[in-house]
């Protein structure tokens, strides 16, 4: 019986910090709740985060790329914020020099 404070997919739950360890293959996301961090188990990380898989733990890490909504890894964006252009995993206000948006998309290409 998983205490109410833990979402589905939790393996080790604590009353104070939510989930401490998720079921295999799920990602743990640390959410802030006033001064506490609450562990939540997810199959995919929320907007602004990407999943890092390791043999012992899978974790949601923050995208560190400017103007990025969804990322593949720390330095590769898969979806830029509305109205921005993307090129090789980065987001731009306008396409870098020498590049232009391809057939009506927001992806820049030479």
């Amino acid at each position, binding site marked *: 019986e998983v205490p109410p404070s833990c979402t589905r997919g939790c393996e080790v739950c604590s009353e104070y910090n939510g989930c401490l360890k998720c079921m295999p293959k*799920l990602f743990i996301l640390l959410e802030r709740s006033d001064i506490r961090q609450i562990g939540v188990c997810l199959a*995919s990380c929320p907007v602004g985060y990407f999943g890092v*898989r390791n043999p012992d733990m899978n974790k949601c890490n923050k995208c560190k790329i400017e103007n990025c909504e969804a990322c*593949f890894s720390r330095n*590769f964006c898969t979806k830029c914020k509305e109205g921005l252009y993307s090129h090789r995993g980065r987001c731009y206000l306008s396409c870098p020099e020498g590049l232009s948006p391809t057939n009506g998309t927001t992806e820049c290409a030479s």
Partner: protein
Amino acid sequence: TAGPGQPGPAACASWCRCDGDGRADCSGRGLAGVPERLSAFTYYLDISMNNITELPANVFKNLTYLEELRLAGNDLTFIHPEALSGLHQLKVLMLQNNQLKTVPSQALRGLHALQSLRLDANHITEVPEDSFEGLQQLRHLWLDDNNLAEVPMGPLGDLGSLQALTLALNRITRIPDHAFANFSSLVVLHLHNNKIKEIGRNSFNGLDNLETLDLNFNNLETFPEAVQALPKLKELGFHSNNIAVIPERAFQNNPLLRTIHLYDNPLSIVGVSAFQNLSDLHSLMLRGASKTELFPSLAGAASLESLTLTGTQIGAIPSWLCEDLHSLRTLDLSYNEIKELPGFQGCFQLEELNLQHNHIQLIHRDTFQGLASLHILDLSRNEITSIHQDAFSSLTSLTNLDLSSNHFSSLPTAGLSSLNQLKLAGNLEMKGPLAPRHFPRLRTISLPYAYQCCAFTGCESVLSATAEDEGKTGVSINADSAEEEERIPLPLHCSPSPGAFKPCEYLLGSWMIRLT
């Protein structure tokens, strides 16, 4: 009533939360199938974390506006070849965390607009040859955390537009030559946590735009020379492997490298020219290359901010070190065989310098000249017999100085007024007292002898004793009543602290007892 996936009158299935703008969230509802009565204009559908085991044919037939479909965290074992038909606008398909044993190649065939495909965390052992046929727009593919024993070269060959690929956490043992030949657009390639022992000389040919390559946590025994085919590489990781040698000119074709992670390898030899001309290199950590005798050339490494080179047989630091490395902030050269120090003038941004556990004997006047940003200096466990009186004079920001376990008899104090931690323990030749007034901000001090702490920790009769001592050691101490007021009011920890058997005064008039 509408069947599964059949459009309803712009309604929302009872299990779901719909925002009225085409987004439906039906995640975590314990559903065994795709909810019914979804709006025909749904473009985002999240049915992850339910109990769906199969996707029947045409289950999304009339959701032709769907762009993102999330099916992660179900128990999918089978996807009917016609399950995804009609989804011509689909860009993102998330199938991670399911029970698939093979790539559902027929079901994927018609998804011509698909850009992101997640198949990670399934049980995929087989990738049929036609798995990705028709997916010309695919940019991002996750196949990590599955059971692949080799790189699925054939199927991947159809993905000329791919930019990001992860094959991490599988059971891949080798990377054949030309494994990624068609991937001129690939930017990120993750292969970490496999069992890769062998990488062909031409394995990475064709990856003209690769910027990040992650080979960490594998079984590589030789340096992957194939990286020389990667002109745009910025980040390379091969830590936690079994590599003993970094060859000469190892990174000669990777001029844009910023980060190289190579720790946790049984390194023994590092080629002198291995790291030359890496003008964007940001940090370099080389530990325990035990048979390395010459300092690797870092010519051109103008962006290097952190250098760790420890546990080698290197006996000297080249004089050019600071001519090239003017961005250096932390330098750790501990546990080598260094006997003589050059001047570090050019490293004017240096904040931390660790030279612990070498064979340094002399500290010259200009050794640390100009290091106004230096906070931490560790010279412990060397053989220092003499320190020039002005050696520390320009270290105006120094807060931590560790000189413990050396052989000098007196400490020059010019320039040490900013110290809050000073370690001198283990310098048995240093018998004279120190004057607290040279260290107004001191918090922690360790000294060779307990009686030397008396001047710092306020033993009542200290003044008379220390006044008498001045004659013997020649170290300037002001022992008149003014000293009483100058004593440092702030909490200060001095060790070894004096006590019954380590008194501040004489014990039976004998110096010898006091010195023990």
